[in-house]
């Protein structure tokens, strides 16, 4: 792998940048692999990287129906935090957060992980109770999270409107200082480049259309738009399309896929220092390194694969943004897009073995799986390599829905993302 550094830039600059090599090979499928990952998002590419790097399984392919990072990885609002309520979730997301902290160096790719703090606003007494419960639970679980008064919240985020006379005044906030954002595309590309360097084949424009099983019912490989590829281990990390892929092996999961939208403003000079989320009035906002305000909207109410959403969803979000930040009313929306998020009944993910031998799944991240990318990828790799879950992802099974062992953060807190 060509090392990336300021020096390398300098050297190549003198050579008019003619010497740079492809960051990952445009691989063609081999007949067979030790493991295949379906889905070239951050989670899938990361899983391939950790399979090669941590578990020594290098004969791995990532098959992606389009271009890598083109799924939710490339269309999310990039909020990263780990201050979840239940210890199972806190362990999972904090595992990821710790990996984020060294990811640029690990991958030799600047993923621009920016720990600018994630602040969640409380607008009513119920919010205060819920957030304080989080703060206490997080402290016991070793996750940073602190309670701020409205004034402290404004100090941390000056554009915030803390006038007590607005319709939903800000009564306080929970702040996770280690939380922040990262550059979405770089996560996919960084993992791809590092995985490629370890021998992983990244195969784009290769859609999985079938899962072949052997006589015993175990996985034998995948049928793709570029032919059959054999492997006894197939990990599916296809986000919104997971149901479609698992249908091919007749595995039914409790998943529904919904449109989720985001939008950006025109770029402006730095004006917004952190990430702010308001669940009560449905708005979340940060400013990217390029200057756009990055704004998340809600999901539409119906399932869909159209990868867009209704105008009323976006207007609803901007009503909330303008109410919280009246100065942004004259700002303008530059682009509005949608993703397809797969949601489980308890809104927590599944990282698990399936009833089919050799078939593994990492899905159900809904509106909030970007933050988990390195952690989930690592745990998924572990599950595939060892054919059993890592203790951190052991609770995130498929069976929990049958048995009732839900990890229902949303029900407990009415907070997502």
């Amino acid at each position, binding site marked *: 792998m060509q090392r990336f550094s300021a020096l390398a830039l300098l050297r190549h600059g003198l050579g008019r940048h003619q010497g740079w090599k492809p960051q990952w090979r445009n691989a063609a499928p081999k007949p067979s692999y030790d493991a295949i990952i379906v889905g070239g998002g951050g989670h899938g590419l990361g899983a391939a990287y950790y399979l090669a790097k941590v578990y020594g399984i290098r004969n791995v392919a990532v098959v992606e129906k389009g271009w890598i990072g083109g799924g939710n990885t490339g269309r999310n609002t990039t909020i990263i935090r780990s201050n979840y309520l239940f210890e199972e979730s806190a362990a999972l997301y904090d595992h990821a957060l710790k990996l984020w902290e060294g990811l640029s160096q690990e991958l030799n790719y600047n993923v621009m992980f920016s720990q600018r703090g994630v602040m969640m606003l409380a607008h009513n007494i119920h919010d205060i109770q819920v957030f304080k419960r989080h703060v206490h639970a997080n402290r016991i679980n070793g996750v940073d999270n602190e309670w701020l008064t409205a004034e402290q919240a404004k100090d941390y985020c000056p554009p915030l409107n803390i006038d007590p006379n607005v319709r939903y005044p800000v009564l306080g906030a929970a702040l996770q200082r280690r939380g922040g954002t990262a550059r979405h595309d770089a996560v996919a590309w960084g993992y791809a480049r590092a995985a490629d360097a370890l021998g992983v084949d990244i195969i784009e424009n290769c859609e999985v259309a079938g899962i072949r099983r052997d006589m015993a019912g175990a996985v034998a490989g995948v049928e793709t738009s570029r032919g059959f590829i054999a492997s006894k281990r197939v990990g599916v990390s296809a986000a919104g*399309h997971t*149901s*479609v892929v698992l*249908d091919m092996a007749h595995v*039914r*999961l*409790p*998943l*529904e*896929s919904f449109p989720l939208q985001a939008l950006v403003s025109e770029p402006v000079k730095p004006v917004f220092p952190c990430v702010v989320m308001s669940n009560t009035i449905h708005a979340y906002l940060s400013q990217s390194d390029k200057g756009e305000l990055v704004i998340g909207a809600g999901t539409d*109410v*119906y*399932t*869909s*694969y*159209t990868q867009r959403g*209704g*105008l*009323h969803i976006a207007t609803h979000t901007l009503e909330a943004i303008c109410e919280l930040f009246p100065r942004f009313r004259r700002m303008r929306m530059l682009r509005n897009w949608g993703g397809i998020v*797969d949601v489980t*009944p308890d809104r927590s993910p599944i990282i698990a073995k399936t009833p089919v031998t050799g078939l593994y799944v990492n899905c159900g991240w809904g509106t909030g799986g970007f933050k988990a990318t390195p952690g989930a990828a690592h745990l998924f790799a572990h599950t595939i390599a060892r054919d059993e879950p890592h203790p951190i992802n052991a609770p995130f099974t498929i069976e929990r*829905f*049958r*048995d009732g062992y839900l990890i229902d953060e949303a029900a407990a807190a009415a907070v997502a993302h």
Partner: protein
Amino acid sequence: MLIIRCPYCGERPELEFAYGGQAHIARPLQPSDQNDEDWNVYLNLRANPKGWHSERWRHIHGCARFFNAVRDTRTDHFLATYKMGEPAPEVPST
């Protein structure tokens, strides 16, 4: 904003409706006779097709009726909407 044809009131904007999930899922008559596996299927497993989908809507801010619809989740175009109890229309093969 989808335009949805309520079988009672005609075409109305999505704002007036509530989505009701997959259609034609009957609650078991004797839930207590179900084993955990079957109950899980009723409770949690929903079709999530990329293509034609039978689903329920309620014209909650209109006539308040639940009704069924067949929609293509690739395009959000409706094939049909029909009253509860009416047979589902023939769904195109693609």
